[in-house]
């Protein structure tokens, strides 16, 4: 009994050390503490904007201030978690009229490259898959802060935004005015280093 427990502890320590080595600059997006937001902003008939966000997603990123070009991000979003504070509108947005969450339940972003522009800015390129269509997008991003948090962890946080043309992703907006054919995507999150 004691032997078994000791062995398990030893194995656990070894595997912890191994993952610690392999993932020195790998971060997990802090969705648990909800320091992560994926928002969108789309015009409403030329009058104002509808603001909304996706509530359920997860992500990981690689970030090393000494080697910025190796930066990478992966995000996975549950489309049906869209929220604009109006249940009937949200139901419509995720229906087959627009995002079709039944058919395409997840949206993903996988970065393919990063071009630094100074120490804390750059342009991220990557494949965005939305509504079953994958398109390469570019998103200017900014490092907002990096360092030890008050709870014994190490964090890095970013923001970025880009404009998407919905037709590129097979979402038909032709019944709506020109101003509604695009939306602005704003993402901000911090990650906890693993």
């Amino acid at each position: 009994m004691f032997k078994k427990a000791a062995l398990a502890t030893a194995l656990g320590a070894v595997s912890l050390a191994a993952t610690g080595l392999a993932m020195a600059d790998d971060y997990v997006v802090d969705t648990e503490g909800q320091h992560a937001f994926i928002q969108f902003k789309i015009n409403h008939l030329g009058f104002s904007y509808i603001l909304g966000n996706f509530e359920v997603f997860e992500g990981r990123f690689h970030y090393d201030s000494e080697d910025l070009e190796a930066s990478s991000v992966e995000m996975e979003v549950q489309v049906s978690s869209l929220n604009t504070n109006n249940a009937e509108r949200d139901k419509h947005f995720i229906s087959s009229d627009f995002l079709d969450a039944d058919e395409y339940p997840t949206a993903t972003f996988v970065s393919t490259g990063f071009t630094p522009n100074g120490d804390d800015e750059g342009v991220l390129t990557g494949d965005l898959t939305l509504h079953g269509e994958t398109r390469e997008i570019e998103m200017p991003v900014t490092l907002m802060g990096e360092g030890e948090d008050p709870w014994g962890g190490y964090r890095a946080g970013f923001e970025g935004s880009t404009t998407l043309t919905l037709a590129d992703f097979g979402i038909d907006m032709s019944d709506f005015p020109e101003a509604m054919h695009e939306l602005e995507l704003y993402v901000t999150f911090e990650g906890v280093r693993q």
Partner: protein
Amino acid sequence: MWRNTRSGWGLVSITLHWASAVAVVGLFLLGWWMTGLSYYDSWYNLAPWWHRSIGMLLLFATLLRVLWRLFQPTPVAHGSRMERVAAHLGHIALYVLMLTVMVSGYLISTAKGRGIGVFDWFEVPALISHLPDQASIAGEIHWYSAVALVLLAAGHTLAALKHHFLDRHDTFIRMLNPARTRRR
């Protein structure tokens, strides 16, 4: 006159029955029509407003109706034993479907925590919100149970007509005339 007896339905039950019949058929047609409206239609917001308001009132009326039914005598059923059992099960199914349609409809609109305005009189608060995919799942249930309800109601109507024209007993008449409560 107001209350039921073993020989007929009182005015309360008769009024609730026919108001529900009109509301169910009306809400079904309104719901079917309004979900096909384009965003630019002048009824796009107004039709759902009527649909939600009447639906909520019907929900309250139905809860009252079920209570009234439970605490009032029920007129004696006619027909063979099999017919009476089938009728009873059919009536229970109608109540269950009505409540399913209305509760699922309520759960669509309250899925994000907002209440439902009933005309501009008052608001029914959201009690159950933020379940996973609540609005979409409730929407599916709302549609299929509404179709089932309307089909069963059509069968209910045919049965009533059969009792009236073929069996020639007063099952149909006593749902029209509260005076039948006084007989026998």
